Each structure stands twice: as structure tokens, then as C-alpha cells.
């Protein structure tokens, strides 16, 4: 990443677009502490967060979903959400307590699953879940930590049209009171959800603005269609 100066306005849905290899996921990794910037600063909600670990950034209210679905293959659906809810507390250190004490998170976990339409599947293991439902679970996990900033890495990739529509509605519902950043290739999704579109290419921002404006920007068109001397 090079010279990326990005301000994310609060309470708005931002879309991060750009061709493969543009640095979208890298930017997510920088924002969530998985990568440390070699130079530059990261401010979260007005406070310096440069060099913090991923768990510290999560505790400050930043949730992310992963581009490649990243779940715990052996756990049941509800156990995922319970784990995510517990992460906000110090309950996880209680090695002297029976795991039955985890049930205190069950009610809230089921609420969250209902919100993403997975409640009927709460007791299944994720191993055999269809792809679209795994993505929905990713979203439930992100919501479980009550984020102020929600980073979604290709939330609709590989989804059926119906699932895409449901995800759009879901994101539209949960964006109230929080800032959302989407990495998305589906321009229909971007157009419907995002108030602000940021276009990345080769680690730099080449355009930013409303979807309707950005899509006709000559630099953006060139980035997507390719240049002869690129």
C-alpha cells in the first residue's frame, strides 16, 4: 500500500472496489492490525490505533469478516456466535468453570442467528453448511461483537441471487448507527448500499466519491478494462 489517505465518514456505508491485487484485503489487514504499517498512522474513532494487535482493535469496536470463509469447522453454528459474544468479556479465561456456563450467551446468540436467517440451523456443524449460509454466519459473528466499524470482505461472493438480495437487506438493516466498509465486486450491491465508493489500484486510491460519479471516472474505467502499457 502506498500513500493511502483514507477518511471513513462515520455512519456511512463505504465500498472498496478495484481489480484483483489492488490491495483491498491488504487494507483490511492494516485496518484490523493483522499487518502493521511500515509507515503512517491508523486512527480509529479519533484515537491512535497504530500498531495495536487484532484483538485490541476488535475490542475497540472493529469487526471484520474474511474473504475466504474462515470458521471453526468442527463447531456448531450457535457455538460460533457464543464464542464471538464471549470474546467481549473475560469469561473465556474461566478454566475452573463448567462449559455449561456458556449457556448465558445462548439467548443473544439465537437472536443474532435469527437476524441473519440461520436460527433454524443453530445446532448444525458448519462443515456441511452451504456456502451462502457460511457467509451469513460470518456476518453474524461480526455483528456479535457490536462493532462501531464493520468491515466486510466480499460478503456476497459466491452467493445465489436470492442470498445476495438477503445480504443487501441485512447490511441495510445493520448499518444504522455504525460505519460499514464493504469490499465488493458485485456493482449491483455497491450501487444499492454504498454512499461512498473508494477505488483502489496497485495499492493507491485512484478515485473516491458517489457511485454514479465514480463509475464514469476515466481512471476507473482504465483500471477495470486495462491499459495497453500497464
Amino acid at each position, binding site marked *: 500500500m502506498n500513500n493511502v489517505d483514507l477518511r471513513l465518514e462515520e455512519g456511512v456505508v463505504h465500498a472498496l472496489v478495484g481489480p484483483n491485487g489492488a490491495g483491498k484485503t491488504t487494507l483490511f489487514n492494516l485496518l484490523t492490525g493483522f499487518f502493521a504499517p511500515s509507515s503512517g498512522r491508523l486512527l480509529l474513532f479519533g484515537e491512535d490505533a497504530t500498531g495495536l*494487535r*487484532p*484483538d485490541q482493535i476488535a475490542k475497540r469496536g472493529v469487526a471484520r469478516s474474511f474473504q475466504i470463509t474462515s470458521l*471453526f469447522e*468442527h463447531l456448531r453454528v450457535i457455538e460460533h456466535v457464543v464464542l*464471538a459474544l464471549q470474546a467481549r468479556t473475560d469469561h*473465556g479465561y*474461566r478454566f475452573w468453570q*463448567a462449559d455449561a456456563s*456458556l449457556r448465558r450467551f445462548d439467548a443473544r446468540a439465537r437472536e443474532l442467528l435469527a437476524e441473519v436467517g440461520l436460527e433454524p440451523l443453530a445446532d448444525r456443524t458448519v462443515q456441511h453448511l452451504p456456502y451462502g449460509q457460511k457467509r451469513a454466519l460470518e456476518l453474524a459473528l461480526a455483528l456479535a461483537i457490536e462493532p462501531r466499524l464493520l468491515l466486510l470482505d466480499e460478503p456476497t461472493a459466491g452467493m445465489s441471487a436470492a442470498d445476495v438480495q438477503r445480504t443487501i437487506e441485512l447490511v441495510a438493516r445493520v448499518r444504522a448507527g455504525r460505519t460499514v466498509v464493504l469490499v465488493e465486486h458485485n456493482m449491483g450491491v455497491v450501487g444499492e448500499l454504498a454512499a461512498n465508493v473508494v477505488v483502489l489500484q496497485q495499492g493507491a486510491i485512484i478515485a473516491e466519491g458517489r457511485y454514479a460519479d465514480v463509475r464514469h471516472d476515466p481512471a476507473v474505467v482504465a483500471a477495470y478494462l486495462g491499459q495497453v502499457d500497464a
Partner: protein
Amino acid sequence: MSLRRGQVAFAAAAIAVALGLPRVLYPVLALDILVWGLFAMSIDLLLGFGGLLSFGHAAYWGVAGYAAGLVARDAGMPFPFAALAGVVASAALAFPLGYLSLRRTGIYFAMVTLAFAQMLFYVANEARPLTGGENGLQGIPRTLGGLALGPSLSFYYAALPLVVVGYLAAYRIVHSPFGHVLVSIRDNEARARALGYDTARYKLVAFVLSAALAGLAGSIEALSQRFVSLDFLHWSTSGQVVLMAVLGGLGTLWGGILGAAVFLLLRDFLSTSDVLRDAPGVVTGLVFIVIVLGLRRGLWPTLRNGAGRLLPRSRRAALEPQVPEPEIR
């Protein structure tokens, strides 16, 4: 519920075996099996549930052995206090060593734990006034409220509750909120961090708990043998206990006792056999290769599945592992 009944039957069988074992085998060997079983469980906690291979657990077994021996001999404390001193010593040591080792992962983590254990081996060898060096720490008494627990059969029954406390502690840790987090870190650490878990700290807690269990086992072993030799800290001790845990089945917890039993019974058999006495390494090696190739998940899952076939189909679910078995990468 069948699960409850299964658990009660399992507990009853376990108690019967524990009480009867020193009548069948000689008591020192019987206690050896239970104690090494606890040691193997400490490895399983770390490796089977946390995905962390320590190749230096002899450090905690040995340091606890010396600490328990010194407290029993020089302070004249009753044996449970000596064992407690061993646990405290090994846990206290595991904090800095675990903190440093856990900065690396995978094979590098294993190598760093081995290096620290080797350092302790040589330190113990040099610290003759304290450890007796190559002569070992000798003449460890074991008393309880004025009772001298001389005969090994008496000590077996006196030590049994302590060992059981260790087993139950290991079970509680694995089946606790902490245990769930530990398994999730093993399966997908990046995900756990993104959820907000300070995974480095969780792994350190697991390391210290594992060392404390290894320390409890080492303390009881020292009191049982009435002698601590440098072998307690030798690298082959670290290897042996990992072997036992793997033989028994990783991620099973109770498998550690089975692994220890097979290992120690085989060694005992070979040392008294006229024909095979001269080549124990070859025989044990062959047996372990056969077990590992034939029963890839270890002895415990194989036995459990075998027992499951005797049950009606509707009740087999009770035998399913509560925590999935790990893949070692």
C-alpha cells in the same frame, strides 16, 4: 439419559480399576502408570486441545520433582504439601519459559521448549548442593500427619486422591469456557483474534496450566520413587511423554493413561523377559509403529468405538467425542 448412565458406568469402572490395580500389578508400577498418565494428559491439554507441541515438558516434571523432594526431605513437610510445592514451582517456571517459547510457533516452538529443558538439565547437573548432581536427590521421605507411608501399597492409596484431583482438573480445563477458546485457537487462530481474543495470553495460560499438571505428576513420581535423578530432566523424558499422549490418542484426555499403561507395561515385560531383554528398543519401536500405523487416532478412540459396537445404535451418540480430535500440521 444414556449419556449420564454412560458416564456413571465409566466412572464406576475407572474407580474399580484404580482401586484394584496395585493388587494386580506391583504398586510402584501401578502408580507409575497413573502418574505418567497424568503427565501425558498435560501434553494432551497443550497439543491435543491447543495444537502446541512442547518438547520440553521434562523441565516441569523434573523441577517439580526436585522441589517436592526438597520440601519433603529438608522441610519435613507432609507429602501433599510437598506435591503442592512442586506444582507451584513448575507453574512459576512455566510463566517466563512459556512466554518466551510462545513467541514462536510450530516446530520452532518445540525446539525452544527443548532448548530450555536442556538448559535446566545442565543447571541441575551443576547445582550439586541442591540436586545431588549425578547422584540424584536421595532419601525423600513421605509422611502424612505423623504416619510414615513406607510400603508402596500404602503410598499408592495415599497418592491416588492427588492423582485423581489432577485428572479432574484436566477434565475441567478442557470442558470449560477456556477449553472452548483454546480449541478455537487451535482450529483457526486468526479468526479467534479477529473476534477479540488475546490468543497469545490464552496460549500462555494453557502452557502454565499444562506445566502445573506435569508438575503434580512429577512431584508424585518423586515421592513414589523416593529419589529424583537427572533422568527426570532428560530430553528422553520429554519424548516419552509425547509418545504416550500420541499412543493414547490426542484430544481424548483419558487416552494419556492408556498410552502410559501400554508403554510402561511393555517396558516392564521386556525388562523381565529372557529372550527380548537385550533389544528393548527394537521391540518397543516395532510395537509403536504398528499401533500408530494401525490405529491412527490412537488407542482411546479405537477402544471407544469398539465398545460402541456393543451398545444399541440409538445410544452410540453418547460415545461421540465432545471435542473433535485435532490435526497436527
